[in-house]
């Protein structure tokens, strides 16, 4: 059974600092997603990672995937207040229909 664990679940950091959110998943996954959710809003897709060693970057966020370790990371560089949000990772398996399992989410707060 596919399970997804994120840590930390809550992160408070100063502007300008770097930090990494970790996402572990328990069994083979076809792809790994990162989403952002602002309070009261729906989920916004950030990255889709499809293969071992995949790295994608958008602005101050960079996501990577290590399928052997079953680990994805979301690295934040020089955080700014606008990055405050909840970040979810999700792993997917094709079980005759695509089934996506989400982590609990990391609530990020960047102090101005």
């Amino acid at each position, binding site marked *: 059974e596919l399970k*997804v664990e*994120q840590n930390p*679940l809550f992160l408070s950091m100063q502007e300008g600092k770097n930090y990494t959110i970790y996402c572990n998943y328990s069994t083979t996954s076809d792809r790994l*997603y990162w*989403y952002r959710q602002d309070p009261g*809003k*729906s*989920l*916004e*897709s950030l990255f*889709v990672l499809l293969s071992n060693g995949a790295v994608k970057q958008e602005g101050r966020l960079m996501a990577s995937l290590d399928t052997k370790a079953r680990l994805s990371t979301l690295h934040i560089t020089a955080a700014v207040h606008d990055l405050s949000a909840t970040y*979810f990772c*999700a792993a997917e398996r094709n*079980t*005759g*229909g*695509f*089934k*996506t*399992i*989400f*982590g*609990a*989410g990391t609530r990020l707060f960047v102090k101005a």
Partner: protein
Amino acid sequence: DVKVTQSSRYLVKRTGEKVFLECVQDMDHENMFWYRQDPGLGLRLIYFSYDVKMKEKGDIPEGYSVSREKKERFSLILESASTNQTSMYLCASSDLNEQFFGPGTRLTVL
């Protein structure tokens, strides 16, 4: 742009009522999903559908049913709403690469 719409942003119902949550997508996606989101639990999959009239149970299907009569529409049904079904409900549709989410329906069952 992919658009996923949900029939209501906020809904208040009473215990025992039958509740319909509607979701429509405009990108001809085959796969559609219903999740509920609760604090500290992330998103949990209730049901998904990979084709018209096809449905699969997710992780927490108890107390829910779904209907997919047309490709663009996926409905979540609470046959007899209970207070523990108070939650945020998110619909999504997907192509082969990623899921696109609707704005969510915050359901309160009194």
